[in-house]
C-alpha cells in the first residue's frame, strides 16, 4: 500500500498538523518508504494468532474507590499559555 499527496494532507488534517504543498510532497515520499518497509509483515502467517494486548501478563490492578488527589487547580494551570480565573483560554469556538 502507498499514499498519495492528497491522503497525506488528509492525514495531516486528522493529526492537526498544518502542512503546505511542498512539505506534503516530501512527506509523501518518506511515508511511502516507511510503508514499503513495513510491507514485509504480509509475509507472516498470522492465522489464529491473538494480537498482543499486554506485553507482560498481569491482572489489571483495582484501586480503592476513593478521592486520593485533587484540589490542584493552580498546579494544573501553572504552565498554560493563556488562562483566566482557572480556565484555559482558547480562540472563540462558538460564534
Amino acid at each position, binding site marked *: 500500500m502507498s499514499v498519495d499527496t492528497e491522503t497525506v494532507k488528509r492525514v495531516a488534517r486528522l493529526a492537526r498538523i498544518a502542512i503546505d504543498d511542498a512539505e506534503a510532497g516530501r512527506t509523501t515520499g518518506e511515508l511511502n518508504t516507511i510503508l514499503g518497509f513495513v510491507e514485509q509483515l504480509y509475509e507472516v502467517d498470522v492465522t489464529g494468532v491473538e494480537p498482543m494486548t499486554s506485553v*507482560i501478563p498481569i491482572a489489571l490492578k483495582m484501586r480503592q474507590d476513593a478521592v486520593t488527589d485533587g484540589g490542584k487547580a493552580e498546579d494544573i494551570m501553572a504552565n498554560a499559555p493563556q488562562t483566566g480565573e482557572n480556565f484555559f483560554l482558547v480562540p472563540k469556538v462558538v460564534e
Partner: protein
Amino acid sequence: MTDLTKLTISEIRARLAAKEFTAVELTEAYLSAIRSSNERFNAYIAVTADKAREMAEASDERLAKGEARPLEGVPIGVKDLFATEGVHTQAASHILDGFKPTYESTVTANLWADGAVMLGKLNMDEFAMGSSNETSYYGPVVNPWRAEGDNKDLVAGGSSGGSAAAVAAWLCAGATATDTGGSIRQPAAFTATVGMKPTYGRCSRWGTIAFASSLDQAGPIARDVRDAAILLKSMASVDPKDTTSVDLPVPDYETAIGQSVKGLRIGVPKEYRIDGMPEDVETLWRKGIEWMRDAGAEIVDISLPHTKYALPAYYIVAPAEASSNLARYDGVRYGLRVPGRDITEMYEKTRAEGFGNEVKRRVLIGTYVLSAGYYDAYYLRAQKVRTLIKRDFEEAFEAGIDAILTPATPSAAFGIGDQDIGTDPVKMYLNDIFTVTVNMAGLPAIAVPGGLDGRGLPLGLQIIGRPFDEEMLFRTAHVIEQAAGRFEPKRWW
C-alpha cells in the same frame, strides 16, 4: 587529589563513607566539568547548579550523622523526558517550551529519596524519537569518542544520547534514560557505557513523558555493570500511580555481581547474523561467546524466527501509540501556542511549528495506520506479529536458555549529519535491529562494552533475559566486563 569525576558510583559510596572528600566537593567537581566542557558535547540542556549544591549539602549532613542512603551524594544527570518539579522538562521538543512540571516522576523521586544529587537535564532525541540525538530541538549531542586519527564529530546514539555522552565524558556519575526500541542500549554501545533496559513494568512510567506506552521503559546508563545495578535498585519500584508497574519486590541487584555463570545456558540466535554486518561486529560477538564459554557457560545455538519482523512491526506500533500520546500537545494546557484564526488553526499551527520533522513523520504514520479502513491491515497485524516475536523468546526460555547473547548494534557510532543515513528514515531505523525485539516482547536486556572496532570506536554486546530476571543480566554482563575490560575515550576536549 584524584579526579573525582572519574570515580564509579561504588567508589564514590566507599570514599564518601571514608570521608576522603565531601558530597559538595564531588558535586562542585562535576559542575566545573560541565562548565568547561558541556558546550563541546551539548549533553546538558539545563544545569541545576543551585539545586545540586543544596542536595549535596543535605547529603553531607546525612553522611556526618552516619545516616547515608544508598545513593548519598551521587551526582546524577536526568534525561529531559522525566518530569522534575520546577525544572526544565521538555522532551527536547520546541512544543514543550517553558514547561516546568509541578510534580516529580516516580523514577527521579526514587533517586532523590535515596540521596542522589541532580546535576541537570540531559539532551535527547525529540520525544525519544531517533537513534542519533539529531532530532533534538537543542541540536545533536557529540560523542566523546572519536575514530583514531580523525577529529570528526560522531553521534552519541539516541534517543538517550545526552545520558550516554554525559556518563562517558565524566559529566555525571550515572544517568537516567529510557528505552522504547533501543534508546538506552544503542547509545550505551556507542559510548562504551553500560545501559540497562529493565523488564516492562519494572520501573514506573509515572511522570515520564510518554512516547509509546506499551514499549517505554526507564533504566540507567552507567560507567560499569555494578553501577547500573546500584542505579536500577533505586529507580525501580512498585508504584500505585502506574497500573503497569508490577507488584514484585525490587531485589538487591548488586548481589548478582560476581556470581558464577558456570553451567548457565547462553543462547546465540542465528537470525541476528544479518547480511552486511561489519566484520568487527561479528568478531566481537564471537569473542563474547568465547568469554562466556571460558567462564563455564554452555553455548547453545537457538532460533528466533520472527526476528526480522520486529522492526517493521515496531514502526507501526510505536508511531500509532505516539500519535495518540502526542495528541495532548495542542497549545492549550502547556508549552508553545501559535495563534490562529480559530481553534483548529491554532492547533494545526502550534503542532506544525512545535514538532520537528521526525516527530511529525511518526505522528502522521501513526494517524494513518490507525485511520478508518487501515487499522486491521496495519495495527492489528503488527500486534499479532508481536505475539509471535514474544513466543519465539518464550520457547527459547522454556527450552532451558538462561540468557541470550547478541551484538548491541549493527555498527559503531557514525558521523553527525551522515548523508547516507540522514536521507533515508529506514536506514536510521535499522540501528535498532538488534534491540527492538526486546521491547516488542517486554523483556529486560543490557548493553555492555565488548571492545573497539578497527577505528578505535566502541562496540557493545547485548544480553537478553527472562522477564524480571535482571539479576541474570547483571551476572552475565559482569563476566563480559571482566573479560573485555573497561574502555574510556581519549580526552581531546
